[in-house]
């Protein structure tokens, strides 16, 4: 259907001439739409929830007069569409307003903290992904034998442990008892790269442990499914060695499912960062958001929620696009 001779004709739709590009553009557009929808959900959804926010905000001290006052003060008496437009408009310029609790600029805080969180998450990802893929391959190689069973049990235990438990366990043994690592994990702008790494050693280890287990189990399943395909039997019947069969025949087809697995687990990372930052008192977005939620500091909550969602949507979009590109059927259409 895709004929090189057609590429020059202006009449044909973009989709038919460059199906790959069209698919990618579609994913991009979808993600942007999704982000907008999420922003409406985060902002507007709060309006749709039952109960009166102003009353909840004041809690014990919710006298009718206090409620009316706080409503005026927080600007809650204006129509929701105006507030949304204003909020979104400012957000697109990077201005997330001022915190109700501390009266500081939210954007300023986010600028500092986002970098910290991304640093932590990124570092954990760099360690966890290759380790997970490697362990997955090992598991498949020793399928149903002792190493596989041991890895299976250990990973099962790891996915059952809550992040904060792992965190405190590591702190208890490595920081307090044996004094190897530092706690809390404070970082500040003037630190050197090496000092930073030292400070985040424990939080990184915690994140890695949590994500590694999930990712490894899924990688194993993906690789196993590829290994049992008919074309792997063909490779064996052609007398090809095990190594060549895996590298040349299994790996290219395992790429797309493994990318999917990694993307799915990056979500764990986004969530894990929040808890780990609270445990280790690390100055990142996660801690910022949790503190804000506890005191119902809405501008901060909404801003953090939007940013977390944006990062998550972005990661999923990249994964989808990579999976599209890795699929030979889509790279070389009929």
């Amino acid at each position: 259907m895709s004929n090189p001779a057609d590429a020059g004709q202006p009449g044909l739709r973009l989709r038919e001439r460059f199906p790959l590009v069209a698919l990618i553009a579609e994913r991009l557009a979808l993600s942007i739409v999704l982000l907008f929808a999420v922003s409406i959900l985060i902002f507007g959804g709060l309006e749709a929830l039952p109960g009166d926010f102003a009353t909840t905000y004041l809690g014990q001290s919710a006298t009718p007069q206090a409620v009316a006052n706080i409503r005026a003060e927080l600007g809650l008496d204006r129509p929701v569409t105006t507030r949304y437009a204003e909020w979104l408009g400012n957000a697109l310029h990077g201005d997330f307003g001022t915190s109700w609790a501390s009266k500081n600029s939210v954007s300023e805080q986010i600028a500092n903290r986002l970098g910290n969180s991304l640093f932590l998450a990124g570092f954990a990802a760099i360690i966890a992904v290759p380790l997970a893929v490697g362990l997955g391959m090992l598991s498949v190689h020793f399928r149903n034998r002792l190493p596989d069973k041991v890895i299976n049990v250990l990973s099962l235990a790891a996915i059952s442990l809550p992040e904060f438990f792992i965190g405190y366990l590591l702190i208890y043994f490595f920081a307090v008892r044996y004094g190897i690592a530092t706690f809390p994990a404070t970082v500040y702008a003037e630190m050197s790269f090496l000092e930073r790494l030292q400070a985040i050693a424990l939080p990184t280890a915690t994140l890695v442990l949590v994500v590694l287990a999930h990712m490894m189990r899924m990688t194993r399943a993906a690789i196993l499914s590829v290994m049992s395909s008919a074309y792997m039997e063909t490779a064996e019947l052609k007398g090809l060695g095990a190594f060549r069969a895996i590298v040349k025949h299994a790996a290219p087809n395992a790429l797309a499912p493994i990318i999917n697995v990694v993307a799915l687990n990056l979500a764990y990372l986004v969530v894990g960062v929040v808890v780990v930052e609270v445990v280790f008192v690390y100055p990142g977005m996660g801690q910022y958001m949790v503190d804000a939620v506890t005191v119902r500091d809405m501008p901060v909550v909404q801003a953090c929620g939007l940013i977390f969602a944006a990062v998550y949507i972005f990661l999923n979009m990249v994964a989808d696009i990579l999976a599209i590109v890795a699929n030979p059927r889509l790279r070389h259409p009929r």
Partner: protein
Amino acid sequence: MRLRDIPITAWIGIIGIIAAFICAFFAPWIAPFGETDVLGDVWAPADAQHVFGLDNLGRDILSRLIYGARTTLFVALGATVISFSLGIILSFTAAVSRGAIDLVLSRFNDLMMSIPTLIFALVVLAVLPQNLIVLILVMAILDSTRVYRLGRAVALDVAVMEFVEAAKLRGEGKLWIIFREILPNTLSPLLAEFGLRFAFAILFLSTLSFLGLGIQPPAADWGGMVKDNKDGIIFGISAALVPGAAIAALAVCVNLVVDWLLKRTSSLKGGRGDA
């Protein structure tokens, strides 16, 4: 299906779960002391009377642990049952109806799933008043999206089989097709998924309580107990590790049973994505 066929790992899991439920049901009779009784010094170490020692307010950790099982299990189970029912009803309806209903439900589900569960929960809990019902409903609705995705995949797998078409040709109504043709063929993967959701609910609830957004004091739930005692870690007090270990142990038991169920299932769609 004979009892002998169940592997030992699954047995460990089953026994652990039963033990937790016994604690939950019979807490007032099993616990040596009361949930809120102050009995001694802050963070007193373990001795013959207090197997795990005392917590940050001088209360017996073991007793709080037993009472905590009640709250943890009740909330986690309640949320799982609601999320599962909601997810299955919606996803099966979508799978059988196809067309516009499927499109709308699935798109909405995708939208809800594009925000990680914890983040979504944080945003919502910032607005809503803090009580048990709200907590259970929030957990249930957010988790139902995962159940929806799996349920739809599993139901579609069965819905395209010819015996479902044969039932349609007979003139059978939608309810018959869902409950008598499709559902019986999806029990195995659904049961495994229920277990997974339950394990996730336990961990999620504990995390929320740990962050101060879940069960409110003085009620004891395991996540909250970790939060109460976490300041002792820096001083080498391991009190916070005890409830943490309990959470982990229960989750391990549930996962062992789920693993066994998964091995018995020929196909499971949707992977184990839990974010």
